[in-house]
């Protein structure tokens, strides 16, 4: 299924586990260092300081470096615990890898958000990037939050509407 950002609620409602996605548009990146900081800004009502809009967005759990991009384990504490708050703030698709807990599955369902996975095929995933720039936390280096412009970025739905492949 072709997905273009920003994503509306109806599109997410239609997606099911095992659906294959090809994403074009913009995706944010974040992992262990950036996502808890992003959640703190949301919780303190200071998200606008970053000048970004998370509504209808995608966050890919990856570093961004000269070595390319690739999913990191989403079930690491700093990443998985950020998913409920980010979903509430409007993130519609979280992309990473690895199984998530029952509590996270429920939080995704409550916010009509989903979790998708992709293989860590860095040489292929990096070739989908058309543009990239840092949008927050540059001091975190490769873990800084980036905005990527991508074309035909592949993923497969792993958790949606209370159902999980894991």
């Amino acid at each position, binding site marked *: 299924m072709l997905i273009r950002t920003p994503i509306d609620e109806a599109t997410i409602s239609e997606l099911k586990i095992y659906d294959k996605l090809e994403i074009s548009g913009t995706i944010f990146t974040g992992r262990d260092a950036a996502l808890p900081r992003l959640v703190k800004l949301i919780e303190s009502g200071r998200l606008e300081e970053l000048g970004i809009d998370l509504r209808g967005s995608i966050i890919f759990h990856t570093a961004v470096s000269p070595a390319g991009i690739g999913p990191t384990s989403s079930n690491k504490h700093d990443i998985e615990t950020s998913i409920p708050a980010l979903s509430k703030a409007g993130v519609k698709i979280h992309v990473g890898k690895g199984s998530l807990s029952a509590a996270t599955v429920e939080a995704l369902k409550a916010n009509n958000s989903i979790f998708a*996975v992709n293989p*860590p095929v860095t040489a292929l995933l990096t070739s989908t990037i058309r543009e990239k720039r840092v949008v927050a936390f540059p001091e975190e280096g490769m*873990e800084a939050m980036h905005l990527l412009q991508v074309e035909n970025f*592949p993923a497969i739905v792993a958790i949606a509407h209370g159902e999980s492949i894991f």
Partner: protein
Amino acid sequence: MMDLFEEIAERTAKTLVTASTTFRPDQMEAYRRAAASEKNPNSKWVLESILENAEAAERTKFPLCDDTGIPHVLVEIGDEAVLPAGFLKAVEEGVARGLRELPGRPMAVKGNDLERLSQSAGLYEDSGALLMAPVQVRRTVGDEVVLTVLMYGGGPEIRGKTLRVFHKHSADVVIEEMIAWGKEAAKLLGCQPCILAFGIGRSNLEAASLGLEAMAKGDFSRQSEIEQRITDGVNETGIGALGLGGNTTVLGTFVKVGPQRASGVRVVSLRTGCCFDPRRATTTFKFQ
């Protein structure tokens, strides 16, 4: 002397780049076999993507995985070989050069002990600032020095463990425990098919070191009875590539059993390798 230093450093750098960008023939063949026999279409897509990624990475000399890993080095020294002065310094230099050339992910953590623990002082921008792990050394026969570079990604470190197993005077007890560990770890890994590497020794250090040796020597086309039994046992879970279901949860298993202690305890070390493991390459020196 300078020329020798340069030769060692350059060949180490090239070996690191090869380890990070290239599947070996036995690895390619294992994936081709797995993709051909995989019944689950989603898992088949993952296995074919991994093969396509390997071909692209080798062609463009780009990392197989963006987590380019922590360099680990195994040096096998022949009984009749003489190491030149400064050998390890040249290897360290080669590792740094290789990481810059690759390029490796710039993930060396700055700061003193407390700052490095909390990652509060930031990261080095220089890929080459990432130090290699303490070198492992083995004695071998002949007059050659064989250097193997292995790149250890982070995901497997979350799912690996080293722990005692009470064997109850039965190898089956140990092997069944290894299968149980493999099942538990494979479920959580995230980048299946996994490659399970085990070392079994008399101490935690020895077991982990033997596990590295298993990764350095393992061959997908030659699985021992123990290795095949563990692979088959974990594949019964049906977790499949990327957790999407199917019969390829484990691509292969590598086991190194070392000397054992007169005791009811065996120390087992597991590295739940990711789909690109073992990322390794070897170069051989013959110093006059």
